[in-house]
């Protein structure tokens, strides 16, 4: 298996790595770069646990090759909090107990951030459809939806 050298930007930092050409971006993040916040669930694009933003677009990192990140911008869960200050979405997830085992949580947070960047005032239905690709086997989803709606409200008030 041949390796490719990749220069990319992850959470605002220039990063270089060499990876096998058939390695997924998820494998590169976790196994080569030690960024284990991004989780592997299904590995086939069904569960959303490995969600990241690629050039501002929400994708499953298991369905992206590591070599495809060349020259592009990747944003993961590790870039969400501002040092020790949690993102409003993270705070609201804690307040609303919107996680139990936590495996889906990084993917849900990255997906929710992507939604609120595009639509700061989503309806409950819009949140549910946007997050339909993020599976959670613990919460029953309702607390996740409440937390995202509350975070959206808080973020709008911060902006106002």
């Amino acid at each position, binding site marked *: *298996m*041949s390796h*490719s050298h990749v220069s990319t930007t992850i959470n605002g930092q220039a990063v270089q790595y060499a990876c096998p*050409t*058939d390695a*997924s971006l998820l494998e590169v993040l976790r196994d080569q770069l030690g960024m284990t916040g991004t989780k592997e669930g299904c*590995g*086939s*694009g069904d569960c*959303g646990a490995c*969600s990241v933003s*690629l050039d501002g*677009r*929400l*994708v*499953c990192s*298991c*369905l*992206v*090759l590591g*070599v*495809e990140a*060349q020259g592009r911008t990747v944003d993961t869960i590790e870039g969400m909090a501002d040092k020790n200050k949690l993102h409003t979405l993270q705070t609201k997830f804690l307040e609303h107990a919107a996680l139990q085992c936590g495996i889906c949580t990084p993917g849900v947070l990255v*997906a929710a951030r*992507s*939604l609120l960047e595009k639509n700061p005032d989503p309806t409950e239905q819009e949140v549910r*459809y*946007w*997050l*339909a*690709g*993020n599976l959670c086997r613990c919460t029953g989803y309702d607390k996740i939806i409440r937390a995202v709606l509350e975070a959206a409200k808080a973020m709008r008030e911060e902006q106002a």
Partner: protein
Amino acid sequence: MQYIAPTTSAAAVAALAACNGDARLLAGGTDILVRLQADLVEPDLLVDIKHIVACQHITEDASGFIIGAAVPSAQLGEHARLSQVWPGIVEGMGLVGSTQVQGRATLTGNLCNASPAADGVPAMVAAGATACVVGPNGTRQLAVEDIPTGPGQISLANNEMIESFSLPPRPPRSSDAYIRFIPRTEMDIAVVGAAVNLTLDETGTCIAACVVLGAVGPTFITVNAAAEALIGSQVDEAALQAVQNACSTAATPISDKRGTAEFRKHTAGVIARRAAIVAHSRALA
């Protein structure tokens, strides 16, 4: 496996031709990455078309829209003008997978993966879309309806690629719609799909129509009898009933875990009727 990301279609096609082993094209990757991970395919060469400028954009001129082969579904939905003129194409592809998949999956991949249940295909066929196909001997235009030949099978040669799709100019009072039946509200594969594309005259009479079914045969099915029922009508109850009957008759589904053949034949008619109602109301708007 070697990975390359050429910046022109000519370079991509030359690389396909020069490869002695299994060469594959990569657009959104939502099908081939799954197969790679499952070791179902082991290509010697992967040619990423996302760096080819002609594959990247949606443009509109007097002859209609051109959609680049690497344009992901999310980009279709964000294009206000395309969504207004061809809502059926946008909503068909918009049903494929999750938000994450929408960020990557392309019409091209949906077409060339050649699933009988491909949600992106019926509305493209109903629109009369053509593909700009680049090969070692140059470029040719091929009707989208001539590309799928069976489940997982297409008419393109291994050394050809789709660079873009062209949609024809849109007369006034035209619209389209795609509706599918699935047993839940999201994240599923069509049991039945139907696209209707139609044009009305000033009096509301339908003067052009195309009705295409998905997931009820080895490839999409164009139902000429349903189009003939719409043309010349006011898209009234009699015409809609004729559309429903023609589509139920034309469907040739199999029974599988997602539905029986009998259920799918009935549902093909119902879904086509609903798609005709939606396309009609959009054309009047």
